[in-house]
């Protein structure tokens, strides 16, 4: 690998931009592609986008060439709205699975360093915070406040983003009311509500497990059931 390519790769990673490194396995030639930029043209572009979505590096074989497609996706992020009891379990679990976790709660009695010592916390209103955070295709968003004043603006922002998972806490009834309130928006089916895999979770820690399980399923299987 040429040093110039390594440096470019490190810069892209610092910007959190998705890149793909192509290595010709016959002659060792390498090039760095940015398949998510709008102006990119490349014969393998569709394959590269699939590889990015699946976060899967592999050897692409054609008649004459073998090319190693190596995906460098930005780190996984989990944005949680609501510094509630469930979050106290979800934050460390998600961190150990590899997520950078950001907690949003304008109520500083909930969102503070005493309750969440090892996590980035913002006390901004969710719509402002979401604008700064810009959820991308490697971001999951979880709404846990039960409070429409806080959840709804964050939901609206998430629905306009590429977030691979959007989940909102609440019973079927609560979720039906939520969908009524938001009926003017598109893509409401993207919201998982009630949130989490149905594993019969009873307490905050178990609910955190069910949420993280569902996020993992969306990450690895897409929205396939």
């Amino acid at each position, binding site marked *: *690998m*040429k*040093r*110039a390519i*390594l*440096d470019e*790769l*490190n810069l892209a*990673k610092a910007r959190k931009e998705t890149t793909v490194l192509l*290595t010709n*396995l016959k002659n*060792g030639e390498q090039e760095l592609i940015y398949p998510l930029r709008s102006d990119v043209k490349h014969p393998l572009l569709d394959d590269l986008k699939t590889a990015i979505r699946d976060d*899967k*590096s*592999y*050897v692409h074989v054609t008649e004459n060439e073998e090319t*190693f497609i*190596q*995906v*460098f*996706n*930005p*780190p*996984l992020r989990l944005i949680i709205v609501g510094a509630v009891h469930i979050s106290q379990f979800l934050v460390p679990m998600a961190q*150990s*699975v*590899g997520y950078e976790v950001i907690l949003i709660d304008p109520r500083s009695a909930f969102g503070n360093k005493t309750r969440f010592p090892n996590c980035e916390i913002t006390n901004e209103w969710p719509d402002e915070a979401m604008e700064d955070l810009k959820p991308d295709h490697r971001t999951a968003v979880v709404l846990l406040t039960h409070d429409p004043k806080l959840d709804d603006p964050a939901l609206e922002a998430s629905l306009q983003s590429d977030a691979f998972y959007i989940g909102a806490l609440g019973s079927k009834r609560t979720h039906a009311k939520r969908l009524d309130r938001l009926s003017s928006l598109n893509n409401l089916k993207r919201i998982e509500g009630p949130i989490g895999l149905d594993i019969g979770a009873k307490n905050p820690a178990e609910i955190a497990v069910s949420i993280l399980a569902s996020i993992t399923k969306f990450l690895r299987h897409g929205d396939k059931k």
Partner: protein
Amino acid sequence: MIKENGNETSTEDLLKTAAAWHDEGRKVALATVIKTWGSSPRQAGSIMIIDQNMTMLGSVSGGCIEGAVIQEALEIMDHGKADILEFGVGDEQAWNVGLACGGTIQVYVERLEAT
């Protein structure tokens, strides 16, 4: 510094470290898993970096083949010709280096070039 669970984080750290080693004037080789069959602990894209003193960071297996990869990496640091190494069940060498996990794995080893 290297987190085994956060694959992306560790790769990022490794590539930064490779650049830092190179800045110090060390010879650096990169070993990247390009193909796996069957059960294998590290997926394609996993990286290990090696310097001429056999310092290594990251991994390409669960510790089974790293020794053999380092040996090869030292040679590639000298002659500069990238190579694909294959280890697997039924492969005498793989058995010798202890790839007991039951998989087959291909590793691309290349030198970090100044220009």
